[in-house]
Each structure stands twice: as C-alpha cells, then as structure tokens.
C-alpha cells in the first residue's frame, strides 16, 4: 500500500495522539512489548519450551528462573515468553485475515445493496448470534486439530463483525459525489471498492482490527484453557493456566504468570484500540 505524503504525515500525527493520552500510551507500550516478545522470544528465552529440569521442579521465582518452574521442572518465564509468539502470531494472523476478508465482504455487500446485501447480512447475523466460544468449539469439533483449523476458526468468528463495520461506513459513503464520479468514469467495481471507498473505512477498520485482535488473543487463550485446538507442550497461556490449576497450592507462580500475561496483553491491546478510536474521531468528518 503506497502511503501518500499526506498519509505519512497522518501516521506521525496518529502516533503523537496515541502517546499523548496516558491510557493509550500504556496500551500501545504494552502491545509493543508483547509484539517484541513474540518476535524475539526465541532469542531472549533463557530456556527451551519443553526443557525439563527434573531436579528443579516446583521452584519459586529465583534469579535462575525468574518466574519459577512448573511440575516438570520447566522454566515458566521461558514458556510465557515463547507462548507470546504462539498466541500473538495466531491471533494476529487470524485477525488480519478476518479483517481482509471482512473488509472485502463488507465493501461488496454494502456497495451492491439490495437482496444480495440482505442475504449476506442475514447470514452473518446468524453467525453473530452464536457466542464466539461456542462457534469456535463447533468448528473445531468438525475440523481436524491443526494450526490451520485455529486460523480458520478466527476468520469465521470475526469476519462478520468486521464486515458489518465496514459495510456501515460504505453505506454512508456510497452516495457521495466521488463514488458517483467514479461510476461516471467507468471505473470497475474493484477500483471503486478498493481505491475510492476503502480509504474511508481505514479509521473504523483500524479500531475494529485492534479490538478483534484483543478478542482473538482471549479466544485463543480460552481454547487453550479448554485443551482444544492445541497440544502440549504448547506454551499457549490458556493451556498453561489450565494445567497449573491443580498446582495452585504447590506452584502458584506457574498459574499466575500466564494468567497475568493474558490479562495484561488483552487490556493493553484494548487500550490501544481506544487510542485508535480517539484518533479516528479527530479526523475531519469526510475522512472518518
């Protein structure tokens, strides 16, 4: 995506606003920290994912093991760090695909209107009426357990909402003069949707994408907690929490640190989404 000179300036403005408010600054920083952890985790983790020290089981936090060890003698800090990559990668990829697919469907459905739009939206309403967790479980029950299945689940669960959001922007934009001008210039559907209308959806799309990202993280952790879609020794934080429940008295650190990781990153991304929403509101009406 080429960024126009105006676009670059806007990005800089956006960053300023993000860091100006304390809440969104915190959120953005947290998100960045975790993204760094996801990217560089393997380099930074002191121990391996499944590296077991049989002689050092149930160790409380210490200089050797910052977050202590679990019942198999695995370093909790390393597992939390490496788990960041799993969760954020899945959540990120799934959200990205959902955003792309949702934006496309929303653009098409909103622009085309009429019966096609009604049918698509009612179908999505049907999907949306199911709680995300339930839908995820149903899908995973019918798909084989694999990484691809989890991504598919995320895409199916979140595409409808993204499509809805994009569609509502499309509805407010499609009768504007520049869309009509494009039609009069004989522009094809693709150009009208992606070059003319899509930029108007960026603010809403960014906010929604960030929100979906935080929900996706939570969904993946929840699936891990239920033991669905992931196999040990996966360091899915939800799975770590589930496994460590019975260690609540013997090794509470094995339970609390992954749980805290989930909470912190979800809150952080949510605050970031709030910040993005505030940026979207500062844009002039025509660009919202």
């Amino acid at each position, binding site marked *: 995506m080429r960024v126009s000179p105006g676009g670059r300036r806007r990005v800089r403005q956006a960053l300023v606003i993000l860091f100006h408010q304390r809440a969104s600054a915190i959120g953005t920083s947290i998100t960045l920290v975790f993204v760094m952890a996801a990217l560089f985790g393997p380099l930074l983790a002191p121990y391996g994912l499944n590296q077991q020290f*049989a002689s050092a089981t149930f160790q409380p936090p210490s200089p050797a093991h910052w977050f202590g060890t679990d*019942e*198999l003698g695995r370093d909790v800090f390393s597992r939390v760090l490496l788990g960041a990559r799993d969760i954020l990668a899945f959540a990120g990829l799934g959200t990205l695909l959902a955003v792309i697919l949702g934006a496309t469907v929303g653009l098409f459905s909103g622009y085309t209107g009429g019966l096609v739009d009604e049918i698509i939206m009612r179908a999505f309403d049907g999907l949306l009426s199911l709680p995300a967790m339930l839908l995820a479980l149903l899908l995973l029950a019918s798909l084989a*357990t694999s990484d691809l299945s989890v991504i598919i689940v995320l895409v199916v669960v979140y595409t409808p909402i993204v499509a809805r959001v994009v569609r509502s922007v499309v509805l407010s934009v499609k009768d504007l003069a520049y869309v009509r001008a494009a039609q009069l210039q004989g522009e094809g559907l693709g150009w009208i949707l992606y070059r003319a209308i899509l930029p108007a959806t960026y603010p809403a799309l960014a906010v929604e994408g960030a929100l979906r990202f935080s929900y996706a993280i939570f969904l993946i952790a929840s699936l891990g907690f239920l033991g669905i879609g992931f196999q*040990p*020794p996966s360091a899915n934080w939800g799975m770590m929490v589930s*496994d460590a429940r*019975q260690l609540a*008295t*013997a090794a509470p650190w094995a339970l609390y640190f992954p749980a805290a990781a989930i909470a912190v990153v979800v809150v952080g991304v949510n605050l970031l989404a709030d910040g993005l929403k505030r940026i979207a509101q500062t844009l002039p009406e025509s660009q919202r």
Partner: protein
Amino acid sequence: MTTEARSARTVLRAIPGLLLSLAAVVVTACATGSSSATNQAGPEKVVLRIGIQPIAQTDPALISSDSEVLIANQVYDYLIDIDENNQVVPRLATGWSVSPDGLEYTFDLVQEVTFHDGSVFTAEDVVWTFDRLRDPASGYPTADLYSGITDIRADGDHQVTFSLSKTNPFFLFDLADNHALVLSAGTAFPDRGFNGTGPFKVAEYVPPDRIVMEANEDYFGGAPNVDGLKIIFYANTDSAVEALLGGQLDFVMGLSTPQYDSLRQAEGVQTQIVETNGFDAVRLRMDRSPGNDPRVIKALNLATDRQSLFEVVQRGYGSVGGSSPIGPVYADYYDPTVELPARDPQAARKLLEEAGFKDALKLDMYMLNTGNYPDLGAALKAQWAEAGIDVALQLVPEGVYYGEGKWLDVDLGITGWAHRPYPQFYLDVMLVCGAKWNESHFCDPEFDRLASLAGSTLDLQARVEAYKEIQRILAERGPLIVPYFFARFGATSDRVQGLKLKPFPGRTDFRNVSLSP
C-alpha cells in the same frame, strides 16, 4: 413532562423488579440452608460420610468403577474376599478345598445368614449368582472370566462345588472378582432391590445426590462399628477434597497426586497411600514400520529415563517400572534383577540412523487428555528429543481414545492399566499373540508358550520361573515401556480409625471402621 416527573416514574417502575430479585435471593438462601440440616436425625448416631464419584450401575454384574464397587461391597458379600495384602480371605465361604487334579473346588458356607429382606442364605443363592454371571448369553464381563467353569452344584444348604474344564491356578482370585457379589436366588431386579447379606442396608437412594445406608445389626460378621454410611456423589474430586477439609466428609478416595500432596500438609486429615500394580504403558506397534524394526524399539528404550519419569510425574509415589506388567506388588513373581540398559540418547540416535532414520524419527503419540498423561507425554517428548525422536503429542478425550478403538490402531500410544490381583490377566489379554487387547501387536511364540504354561500350571515354582523368564524376554525384546507403577490415594478425617485402603479402593472394608466423636 418535566425531568422530575420522568425520574420519579423510572424509580417507580424499578421497584417491582427490585422486590422480585430480593425475593429470589431469599428463596435460594432458604433452599441451600435447608440441605445442611441433615445428619442430626436422632441422638448420637455415628455416620461415616464418604465422598465418591457418581455411579451409573448398581447391578453387581455390571459394576466397574471404584464408586460402584464401593457401594455394592457394603450391600452384598463376596464368597471370598481379597485383603489389603493381596491375599484371599474367607467371607461368605468359611473354608474351601481343592481336588487333587485341581478341577474341583468345594466351599463351606456360613450358616445362619439372612438377606436384608429376611430370607435365609443358602448354597442355592451361590449357585444362582454364579450361573447368572457365567451365562454366555448374558454378555456380562464375567462370562469370559468364568468360561472355564463347567458346573456349579449345591450340596445341601451350606456347601457348594465348582467344576472346571481345565486347571486355573488363579481360580480363587477369579471367584473374588469385583462382580462376584452373592445375590438372593431369583432376584428379579438386581439393580434396584439392594437385597444383599452385606454389613449395611440401603435406607435411601437419591440417584444424583447420595445413598444413605444403615448398619446391618444382624450381620454375620458382627455389626459394623458405625451406625450408618452416608455416601455423597461428587462429580469433581476437588469439591470432595474441599468438603473433607471443611469437616463435612470423613473419607475421600480417587485423589490425584497433587491433591494427595496438598492433603498431606493439611490439618485434621490423614492420608493413605497404597501401592498397586496399575501402570501406564508406552508402546509402539510392532507389526509395522517403524515399530517392526527392533532397533527402533531398542532406541526408544535407550532414550527413556524411567526413574526420572517416576520422580517427576508420580513424585516418587508408587514404584519405578520396567518393561513388563509384573510389578513389585506381586512379591512372588516380580524379578528385581532384570536389567534394563542405562539411558543413552547418543546410542539411541545411532541405532535410529542405522535403522534408516537419518534426520528425526517423527511420531504422533496418542494418550488421554486427563490426569497425569499430559505431563507424562511432555516429559517423554523432552527425553526422546535428545535421541532424535520428534514426538507430536495428541491428547484426546476418553471417548475418542477408547470409544473409537483408537488405542488399538495407533502406532504410538500410552494406555493406562488398572491393578489386578494377579498378573496373568495382562499377559493373556495384552501381550499374547492375537489377544483382544494386544495394542502393541506383539507376537512372540516363546512368550506365548510361557504365558500359557504360567496360566495353567498349579506348580508355583514353575509359574515363578515362567514369569521371571517372561520379564527377561520383555526386557530384551518386548514392546512396553512401563515408566512406573502408580499408587492409589485416599484421605480420611482425623476422627476415622481402622480404615485401610485397598489397591482396588472400591473394595475397602468399612466393617471395622470407627469414628471417634
């Protein structure tokens, strides 16, 4: 309308809602409150409160879980019982004799015993019970077990004789099978009547919640020390443990290792541990690649550190395992001298290379997704990774692993086997060529010959020799990796005395258990 009027209206509308919710709170409080007003019926009744998993079966012919057996064991009696040391002891039978050719067993029965409904216990009841259990058309689990019985006949009211088709050195253990509880002849509804000779009578059965029993004052073995049992069903053992700690239960069984660990430190609670021969078997199918190459089997063994697994997964409770299902609990048969090679991942790697796996040997390992299995799987994965074996863990629910027969199909799996009073069962069912539960598809004629011998000879020494040879064969070329034999755990409140947990906890005796005030 003015804003004041509007807000007044809103408040007025909210009042009924508030009242309703208040009422709901009050009602639920009363309901939960009433359930705790139990246990105080009558002055000074000593009732032992037990927390177990919910039951599905009450017909003795069909029971299987610890809980089901525990309940049946109080209502009915066995002909002969097995004590906590794995020895056969009399119960309804006072004594027995075996014919010289080992094909006839005659039992003398206790006299002046009545069922809970008042009818008298005779040999006819024994004949009826075992005829029912061995009926091939019935489909009961015991039909196979008792297929060797050709005839049962009563000699008078207090003597019964069993005739066998071939010698069975373990016949007495077989007669003490979990299902072999004696019913009154002609019982129409064995799952409902609860009409046994046992030390406790069923006073109240509320299926999802509890079963309450009173002591049988006329019990032939002497009235129990406690006045009754209150058995409460808990779907979740955590809740049962909480209840025990809170003083609402006196006995809980089926604890997990971490629960046991945490209860050991708890106040007001005594813990019990009993070693069993239950084990988890890690096995690779030997009838096809890669398991059909003995080097691969050997490599797996070289890559495994059983001691470490025992210490990490079982935390040292139970005993370290080897390659055979014959564990230290069978003091006579167990051979501690059988040597397994020390762990050597490098040697394992070399063997695998020779076998043609230059890079990694990739395997999917299937197991249940509950209990200790995830940890065992993870630990094995770490150990084997050092030998160049790349294992992908596949945790599946019980319904999938056992229900769909997956465990018999997969190449690499971990299957749990429960304690049995004698090891022959494992051999016959798990390792003999073509056996119905031979998940590893192991087929060795020498092994088969020895197993058959051990299962039929009445000569103890010959049997011991055969078992020891079997252990050596399995160590050398068998498919099993048995990391440990696990222990079973139970816990009682401090008030309980005289309770001894048995290796099959459902068989625990409550006749001599007493409660101090």
